[in-house]
C-alpha cells in the first residue's frame, strides 16, 4: 500500500504505433517513460520518482480507461477519440504520430450503384458520408482494410494514411483526404478537478517539450 500512495497520477499510453513516439515526448518533458515496453508482456509500469503509473492499453481502449477514471490522463490518436466519442477533456495536441484519415479506392474507381465502404472506424465513416448527403453501406472490419476493394467486399475504404506506402503497394489511391490526425493528451473529468495541480504540471511540461520541438523545425 505504501507503494501505491506515491502514485499521483495514472496515465494510459497505447501500445503499438504511437508508444515510442509518446514515450520520447514524455522523456523530453522530463517524465521518464521507458522507451521499450512493446515486446514485454507488462501491463503496468511504475515511474517511482515521477509518481506516475503507466497503464499500457490497447489504443482503442485508452478513452474508456480515462472516461471511467481508471486512468487520470491518456494519450490517444484523434482517430480513436472521434470514433469512440467519450466524455473526456482533450487538453493538448501532442503533434506526434501525424497522419491523415482518407477515403481510399482503386485508381479506376467510379461511383457505384450500391456503394460500400469498409473501415475500422464505422462511426466516423457513417458520419462523414451522411454529412455529405451520400448513401453508403459501411462495413466494419478489424484489420487489413486494404483487402476489401481488392477482393470486391467494398468499393472504397476509410483508413489512416501515414506515408501512403501500404496503399501504393496494394495498388490503391487516396481519393479524398478527410481529416488530419495527431495524438492528443486527454484527461478524466473528475481528475481534471481533483488532481488539477498534477494534470496542469504534466500538461505544461508536455507543452514546453512540444514548443521546443517546433522551435527546432525551421
Amino acid at each position, binding site marked *: 500500500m505504501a507503494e501505491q500512495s506515491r502514485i499521483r497520477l495514472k496515465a494510459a499510453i497505447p501500445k503499438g504505433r504511437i508508444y515510442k513516439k509518446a514515450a520520447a515526448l514524455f522523456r523530453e518533458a522530463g517524465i521518464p517513460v521507458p522507451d521499450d515496453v512493446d515486446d514485454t508482456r507488462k501491463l503496468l509500469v511504475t515511474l517511482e520518482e515521477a509518481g506516475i503509473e503507466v497503464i499500457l492499453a490497447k489504443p482503442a481502449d485508452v478513452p*474508456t480507461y480515462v*472516461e*471511467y*477514471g*481508471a486512468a487520470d490522463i491518456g494519450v490517444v490518436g484523434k482517430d480513436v477519440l472521434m470514433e469512440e*466519442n*467519450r*466524455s*473526456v*477533456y*482533450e*487538453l*493538448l*495536441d501532442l503533434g506526434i504520430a501525424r497522419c491523415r484519415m482518407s477515403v481510399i479506392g482503386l485508381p479506376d474507381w467510379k461511383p457505384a450503384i450500391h456503394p460500400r465502404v469498409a473501415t475500422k472506424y464505422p462511426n466516423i465513416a457513417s458520419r462523414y458520408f451522411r454529412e455529405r448527403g451520400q448513401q453508403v453501406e459501411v462495413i466494419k472490419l478489424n484489420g487489413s482494410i486494404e483487402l476489401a476493394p481488392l477482393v470486391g467486399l467494398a468499393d472504397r475504404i476509410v483508413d489512416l494514411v501515414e506515408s501512403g506506402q501500404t496503399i501504393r503497394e496494394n495498388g490503391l489511391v487516396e481519393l479524398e483526404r478527410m481529416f488530419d490526425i495527431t495524438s*492528443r493528451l486527454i484527461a*478524466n*473529468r*473528475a*481528475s481534471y*478537478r*481533483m488532481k*488539477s495541480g498534477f494534470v496542469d504540471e504534466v500538461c505544461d511540461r508536455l507543452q514546453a517539450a512540444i514548443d521546443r520541438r517546433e522551435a527546432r523545425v525551421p
Partner: protein
Amino acid sequence: MTMPKPKMFEKPRGVKDYLPDLAAKLRRIEWRVLETMARWGYRQIITPTLEYYDTVGLASSTANERLFKLLDNKGTTLVLRSEMTAPIARVVASLLKDEALPLRLSHHSNVFRAIEEEAGREWEFFQTGVELVGDGSPEADAEVIALMAECLKAAGVREFKIALGHIGVLSGLLEAALPERPDKRQTLRECLLHRNYVGYRAALKGMDLAPGARADLERILRLRGGREACDDALSVVRDDASRAALGHLRDVWDALQVYGVGGHVSIDLTMVGNFSYYTGLIFEGYAAGLGFPLCSGGRYDNLLASFGRPAPATGFALETNRIVLVADDPPEDGRRMLVLYRKHRREEAILHAMALRREKDAAVETVFVPEGTEIGPEADGEGKWRFKGRRYDMVFRFDE
C-alpha cells in the same frame, strides 16, 4: 437485429435492481441529505413521473433522443421526467402561484434518460435536490452551493471539489470578440461544451480576430482556481456583460468563504453547462475515486417565464446512485432480532415480538417452525447468531 424474447429473469438495459444492503445504504444517504435540506428551510414536494412532452418535456432541454416518450390513451405524447427543475417550475408557476417568493423547495425522485454510451450512466437514476425560486442575488447562489457542499458531507462524501463557472463571462467575451458572428461563437462554445480545448485553440487560430481578443480567449482556458482567477479575468475582460458576470461570481466566492466551504470550490470560466436553460452561475461536484460528476446545478432565470411566472431561480441535484459508490456509510445502527416459535407457543412468541418492536430500537423477525423440522440457529462464535445464512444480534426460541 431482432430482439429474442428475453429470459424471465432479464430486465431492460439501463435499469437496475437495488438489493437490501445497497437499498438500505441508498435510503440512509437520501434521508440524511433530505434532512439537511429541511434544516435549511427547504420543503419537499413530489411531482408525477409522467409529464406532457409539449410542456415539461420541451422545457427540460433534454435532447429529444434521450427522452423516454409514450402515448396516453388519447394519443397525447407523454414523457418520463428527465430532470426535476422543469416540473418544479411548472408547479411554482401554477399551483403555488399565490405563494410569495422566494420559495425554497426540495425534491427526491427517480428520473429517466436514455443514454447509450456515457460512463456511469443509467436510464433510471435518483436525484435529490433543491430549487430556490425568486432570488437572483449572489446570496442565493452562494446559499445553494453551500447547501450542496453540506449535503455531500452529510451523505458521507469526504473528499470533493465543486467547480464553479458563470455562463455570462464566456458569452460576454465571445460577443465582444465576434460581434457579428453567432456561428463562430457557437463553434467555440461547442468545443468547450465537449471539453475539447485542442479544437477550441485550433478554431481560434482559424478565425479573423484582433490579436488581443485571441490571446484573451486562449487565456480563459487556464483561468482556474480561487478568487485570483476572477481578478485575473477582470484584467482580461473589457466588456460590461462579462465584467458584471465576474463581479457576481466574485461576490458568490466571498459569500462561500463565510459559509466555510471555500476550500472545496474552484473557479473555472470555461464551464458551459449541460442544460441550455442555464443563464448564469453554474457548478458541478466531483469526488475522489469516481470518474464522473456526482452533482450539478446552476441558475436558470428564464425558465419560469416559459410557464407564465417570470422569476429568477437557482438549484442543484445530487445523483444519489453515484454518491452511494463513494460515500462512507456509518455502520448500521439498528439491531436485528429473531423470534422462532412452534405452534403451541404462538401467542407468547408473537406478544414477545410485538413488545420488542415497541421497546427496542431493533428489527424483529418472527419465524414459524413446523413440528418435526429442525429449529437450529447457530452461534457464530462472536456472540451473534446465524439462521438461514443471515446474521442476528439476538435469538428468542419458543419451541419447548
